[in-house]
């Protein structure tokens, strides 16, 4: 069958206009689906599943035909997305790079002119790649772009993707933006999701999964509850690991400490205004112990010094000296 398609591509290469583009896209899609099924079949009878890989190299040729100048280029992004799907499935995402380069360096064709459907998919996948490479600002940009498009266009088939984009997007927001803002964003995102999916059954399922996965993470961040963060990560560990966001979420730990110390400060100020902006490290140890997190003064001191060093907290701290009467305190600036 691939041979048939190959000759079709040969012909297509020679045509000036792009009138069969739609048919070509259908072929690209079909070939991927077929290859996936064939692989499943092959694996079940104990043969090497290699059809999807073959489909990948075939589509790469198709991409080559489309990626040039002219009207055919509109279809290039569709084929790119099919390629992404293949590479993500095969775990060979490094192969995405050359395709991305070709899309992003081409000046002849404005990215905005591609069909919305393809733009969303493309931005979603490249956004995921940025997450893996820990390039968060770029990831945030790309995923937000995909999300906004989905909202604006409001097309129902993308619900699925929307929820997945959220999977990647919200931890980024959590990690980068001050958490007040992020909470609003997350809840806003959830609300939006609810609205846009209202009435649809699959949608409900997705919301439930999403809310379950992230609710506790967000809550932990809001409360400064380290134990909750650990539990939330552990509870959905497999899922977080598979989607590649685990390490990003783990980074939230510092923000949780930041929140906790701020809360202690607020409470202390209410009880005794004279003690404002001065926290004994011992108090933080106690708070953590109450959360069943066993940490000694030394470790808390270490955390505090990192928070100050990374500018997540203003102030300075002093360490225990040999003289017993001096206590370790942080002075918040």
């Amino acid at each position, binding site marked *: 069958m691939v041979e048939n398609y190959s000759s079709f591509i040969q012909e297509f290469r020679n045509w000036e206009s792009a009138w069969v583009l739609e048919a070509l896209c259908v072929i690209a899609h079909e070939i991927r689906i077929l290859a996936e099924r064939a692989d499943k079949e092959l*694996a079940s*009878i*104990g*043969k*090497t599943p*290699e059809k999807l890989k073959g489909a990948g190299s075939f589509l790469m040729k198709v991409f080559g035909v489309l990626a040039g100048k002219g009207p055919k280029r509109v279809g290039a992004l569709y084929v790119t997305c099919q390629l992404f799907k293949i590479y993500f499935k095969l*775990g060979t*995402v*490094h192969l995405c790079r050359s395709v991305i380069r070709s899309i992003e360096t081409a000046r002849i064709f404005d990215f905005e002119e591609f069909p919305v459907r393809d733009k969303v998919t493309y931005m979603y996948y490249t956004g995921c790649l940025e*997450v*893996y*490479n*820990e390039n968060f600002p770029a990831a945030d940009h790309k995923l937000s772009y995909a999300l906004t498009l989905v909202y604006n266009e409001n097309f129902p088939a993308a619900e699925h993707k929307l929820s997945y984009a959220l999977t990647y997007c919200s931890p980024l927001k959590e990690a980068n933006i001050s958490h007040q803002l992020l909470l609003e964003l997350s809840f806003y995102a959830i609300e939006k999701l609810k609205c846009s999916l209202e009435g649809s059954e699959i949608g409900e399922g997705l919301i439930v999964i999403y809310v379950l996965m992230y609710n506790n993470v967000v809550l932990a961040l809001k409360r400064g509850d380290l134990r909750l963060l650990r539990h939330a990560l552990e509870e959905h*560990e*497999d899922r977080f*690991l*598979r*989607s*590649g*966001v*685990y*390490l*990003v979420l*783990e*980074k939230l*730990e*510092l923000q949780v400490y930041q929140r906790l110390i701020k809360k202690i400060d607020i409470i202390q100020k209410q009880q005794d205004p004279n003690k404002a902006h001065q926290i004994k490290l011992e108090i933080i140890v106690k708070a953590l112990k109450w959360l069943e997190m066993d940490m000694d003064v*030394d*470790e808390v*001191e*270490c*955390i*505090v*010094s*990192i928070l*100050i*060093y*990374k500018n997540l907290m203003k*102030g*300075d*701290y*002093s*360490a*225990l*000296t*040999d*003289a017993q009467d*001096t206590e370790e305190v942080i*002075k918040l600036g």
Partner: protein
Amino acid sequence: MADRRGQRQRPMITKNYSSSSSTKSHKPLNPNSNTRIAHANKSATVNSGNEDNIDEHQDIPNLVGTCPFMCPVEERARRERLRDLAVFERLHGNPAKTSSTLAVKKFCRTISANNVQASDVRPVSVLEDTLNYVLNLLKSDCRFEVVHDFIFDRTRSIRQDLTMQNVTNDQAIHIYERMIKFHILSHHKLPKCGSPDTASICHLNMEQLTKALTSLFSLYEANRAPDSIYKDESEFHSYYVLLHLCSDNQSESLSLWFRRVPFVIMKSKEMCFARRILRFFRLGNYKQLIYTTEAEASYLQYCIIEPYISEIRALALSCVNYGGYKLQPYPLAHLSKLLMMQESDLESLCVDCGLQMSSDGTGKVLLSTKLTSTCNPKRGYQKYCEVVSERLERLAAEVSEL
């Protein structure tokens, strides 16, 4: 092709498996499993791509080596003639004379596929003996760089022979595991040798370490049976994590790698340790990183972590210097406890970082200056990475057999 290879390997598995695998899991090997062999085929392709671009050997069907010696007769004669013999290969120190018990096949980058003969390739059992022999040289009194140079080359050649014959069985796994251990140990020892081109040797060693590790993971994957993992599989996965504590953009990121690692391995004791170290390192939790390493690391894990320790210590100094309360200087004794290093070493590290110290009567203290630029936490502080620990010293002493 898959089936033929399966038939070829079966006798080898049954012949040598039990005698050679003291440290391996006793996962039953089912030679009739078609799936397993099919997988092996896939991974062999991945493998050869990694191993020095000898993928043209893929085309040679059913190559089974017949060379009974560590070095093919022809190569031995040639190198005697050319006086191309390593110190360890010379008979009575004669640079033009060797023997079948001394000469070991050299790694050769450009072997053209056509003229590989079965008599030039060593079968697995010979490869195992060869590995035993070369690793045994670690016990010799020779300078470590010299021994390393020899073993580095000859183990590479062993891997080449394995790849040429497409061996993916348990023996191959065990061979790879031992070679990786050697590279990790070297990663630890080489910087301390103080030879002038240490940096490049370390780099090459690291390169082979990463390559071999990637090949090993493909081998594990090729032999994957449901609900069982190899005894040391988790430990070797933990090495990978520890080698990638710093995220550089060169290699695949850990987030991506974690997606593929089986969940059982992710939850194993060794991986949990490595993942905790990763968390501490990325968070900057210097106290826990050092304490946890001291308390829990296996010796080889420690060998990988050690270079990072000087880095995290320099970070700790930066933090204290930046965040410490100005009117109350920071006692060095306390810091030396947190960082598990001798106070005298800490003092010289402070000096190297350009920090000011003074004495307050009870002991040395660090003066906080609130400057961020004083410290330069790069990996140049080799001498400041050792952790004061009896447990680790004991482990170091126990490491003899690879």
